[in-house]
């Protein structure tokens, strides 16, 4: 098990290096190149000599790999994600406040998704082709095809301006854990993100369980006289768990992407809104810094999912070489 964890750790580290290389290289591709920020600081009509001097001051005249190395030490040793020239603040300063809010939103929805989608998929598979199954599959299909912001608009219209009159906007100047002390304003954003997750995961769970149910060991279980409940929970459920943990790990980027949209619709001040704001300001270091941070969160989530998979399924530890 330890060997497996170490192997996965090394793999994740390599992947992280590639992500860093991507976020580091992107500004080079910008029309103005890496000297583009100089024109923000010095003004659009700054002359070439001043711009070149500014570049030298900020070490932009060094070769690519030297700069990449100092970028790596910055990120790893000082947790420095760069400097926003547009807002004249360090990127970390801009986003530190909002990380907990986004993470709480995403985590709560992920947990709810797991607790709703897995049982739902299991029930759908065991009652295949009943009215309930058709209704759930159809709903998931439509939700899956709907842009996430449209779902938010419809939910807002129905549950905030229509019935129930839930608050349409969570307060912004409160502690990140306000979600748990005063949950009412957070119901709609969390519900939207959860619904999006459930639409994808329950569909996958149903498919996986259906595939498991035709395996030989299920027939054996039935033949030796297991009750329907035992077959479903002890045999089918456990074997479907592996693929589900993997897909949960892989769905993390979609989770954060969904959170971004939901934050913009509900004006929930988190990393997503910061990204969109920075993008509208053309503030590239901030956008890249947040993208990097969210990627790191995703990688950590994937790593956890893989370790969890190694625990629930011993075969993985041996196979994944």
């Amino acid at each position, binding site marked *: 098990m330890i060997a497996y964890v170490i192997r996965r750790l090394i793999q994740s580290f390599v*992947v992280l290096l590639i992500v860093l290389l991507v976020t580091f290289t992107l500004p080079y591709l910008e029309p103005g190149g890496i000297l583009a920020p100089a024109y923000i600081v010095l003004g659009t009509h700054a002359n070439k000599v001043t711009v070149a001097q500014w570049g030298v001051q900020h070490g932009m005249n060094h070769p690519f790999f030297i700069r990449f190395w100092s970028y790596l030490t910055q990120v790893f040793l000082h947790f420095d994600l760069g400097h926003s020239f547009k807002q004249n603040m360090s990127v970390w300063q801009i986003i530190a406040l909002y990380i907990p809010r986004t993470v709480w939103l995403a985590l709560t929805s992920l947990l709810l998704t797991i607790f709703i989608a897995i049982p739902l998929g299991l029930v759908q598979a065991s009652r295949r082709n009943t009215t309930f199954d058709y209704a759930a599959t159809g709903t998931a299909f439509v939700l899956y095809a*709907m*842009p996430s*912001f449209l779902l938010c608009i419809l939910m807002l219209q129905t549950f905030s301006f229509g019935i129930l009159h839930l608050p349409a906007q969570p307060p912004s100047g409160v502690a990140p854990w306000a979600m748990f002390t005063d949950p009412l304003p957070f119901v709609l954003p969390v519900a939207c993100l959860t619904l999006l997750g459930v639409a994808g995961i329950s569909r996958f769970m149903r498919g996986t369980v259906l595939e498991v149910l035709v395996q030989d060991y299920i027939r054996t279980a039935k033949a030796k006289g297991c009750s329907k409940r035992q077959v479903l929970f002890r045999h089918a459920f456990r074997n479907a768990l592996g693929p589900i943990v993997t897909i949960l790990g892989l769905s993390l*980027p979609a989770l*954060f992407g969904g959170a971004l949209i939901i934050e913009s619709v509900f004006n929930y001040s988190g990393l997503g809104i910061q990204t*969109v704001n920075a*993008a509208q300001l053309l503030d590239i270091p901030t*956008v890249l810094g947040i993208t990097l941070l969210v990627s790191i969160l995703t990688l950590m989530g994937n790593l956890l999912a893989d370790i969890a998979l190694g625990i629930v399924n011993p075969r993985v530890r041996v196979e994944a070489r």
Partner: protein
Amino acid sequence: MSTSPEFTQIVNKDKSDNFITPLWRQRFNIFLNNKLAVASVLFLFSMIVACFLVPLLYHTNQTDQNLALSSPWNQAPSAHHWLGTDSNGFDVLGRIFFGGEYSLTLGILAGFITIIFGTIYGMIAGFFGGIVDTVLMRILDALLSIPYIFLLITMVTLFTRSTVFLILIIGLTGWWGNARIIRGDAMLIRKLEYSQASSAMGASRLHIIFRHVYPNSISNIVTVATFSVADAILYLSALGFLGLGIQPPQTDWGTMLQNGASQITNGYWWEVYPLAFFFVLVVVSINYIGDALRDVFEVRLLER
């Protein structure tokens, strides 16, 4: 091969001269039997045609930025404006098709670019295996761990937001998931007996790729392409919704929905619901066609 006439007649249900129905014909029949899938194709086709044809027949001004000064805005549906007007005075019905032109064209083009790149990358990784596969897959892992919408936002911040660029950017970055699926296929087919046999008979790698691996993974490629188009349309609309999409005077469905969303609290339902209906129906039908295509290529459903 000589077979008794009775046997031929039993096997061959539609009385052609061949021994069995050609493969593509069988597959086409399976698709035709799926009524909902046929309806989806018809709907999608008519929607695409409508997006290009309706603006020619139903004349509305969709480009004048100062229209709201001369034309009534936020007006309820009437005989003059069938689905009312939006907050800029644009006719909503006309605008649905005007924006649809961009949404659908961009989605389809971007989707096709993703499938080309995904196929090439996946084939190389899956077919060569070993160290090539490891390196290519680790790169994919890294790219896939960057949440896609964040990456898109980064791209449109770094570069321009022109129509061509939006197609290219979704096309050039959207293929990572596809590559993974096709790589799995290529890996599987490379190890199957017919590929092994071909290789034993001295076929070149290129021959095996083009003669065996590619034709046998076409089913997945076609299915994945369908879903890619749907994804591209959705991502494009998300960008539009965030105000980072196509620039005026052009528009797309995402931008329109964002406009409508800010008006809907005032009760101007016609600015969101009709478009939302068309939008969801388009994506649902694309996804349904994808599902149906997957069934078509299921070997189990073919007559043998």
